[in-house]
């Protein structure tokens, strides 16, 4: 039931773009994206509800494909501050009232 994130790791140069995917085998009600820097608390990025919604947050945006039960996080013109591990948390349809997180995607942005 744990969502699958891909890729596991990505290395970018500052200014490059990246896409992180999160796929579920179960029908989703919402997808949550968080970023965690080493030794720190996860920080909220955005929530997407079922319906194919796309949201944006500065140069970070995300989409939710209900047909595929997949969400993608888009990071454009990456900055050094984007480095960290990105987690998707999924809420399954049926109101489970809890998030199931993926294993994370480690993003490194180099100068």
């Amino acid at each position, binding site marked *: 039931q744990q969502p699958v994130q891909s890729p596991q790791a990505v290395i970018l140069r500052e200014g490059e773009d990246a896409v992180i995917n999160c796929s579920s085998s179960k029908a989703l009600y919402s997808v949550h994206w968080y970023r965690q820097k080493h030794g720190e608390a996860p920080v909220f990025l955005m929530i997407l509800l079922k319906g194919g919604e796309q949201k944006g947050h500065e140069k970070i945006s995300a989409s939710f494909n209900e047909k595929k039960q997949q969400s993608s996080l888009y990071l454009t013109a990456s900055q050094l501050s984007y480095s960290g591990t990105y987690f998707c948390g999924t809420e399954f349809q049926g109101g489970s009232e809890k998030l199931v997180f993926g*294993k994370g995607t480690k993003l490194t942005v180099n100068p």
Partner: protein
Amino acid sequence: GAGVSQSPRYKVAKRGQDVALRCDPISGHVSLFWYQQALGQGPEFLTYFQNEAQLDKSGLPSDRFFAERPEGSVSTLKIQRTQQEDSAVYLCASSLFGQVIYEQYFGPGTRLTVT
């Protein structure tokens, strides 16, 4: 205006000892979640409170784990007779409303090492 705080930040316990981990959520937040995060993994759900009511404890690994939030604010996660596999970072998160679709604010975590 402070965020979620957790104490202690680090805890070393000998195998078999009991430990208590504290979480102070953001004032007024209805929901409180506990997660366990192993090294290199995502947070794994342990339990969920809405005010003082524990609505879901399906993620607690064994009956050695117990959580409470008696007055609907501060929460304590207690682990009895700690085992080496309990070593992990324990994260607490709170949310303003009583549904999981809202943003969760995480604390810095307590790193538990069982020797």
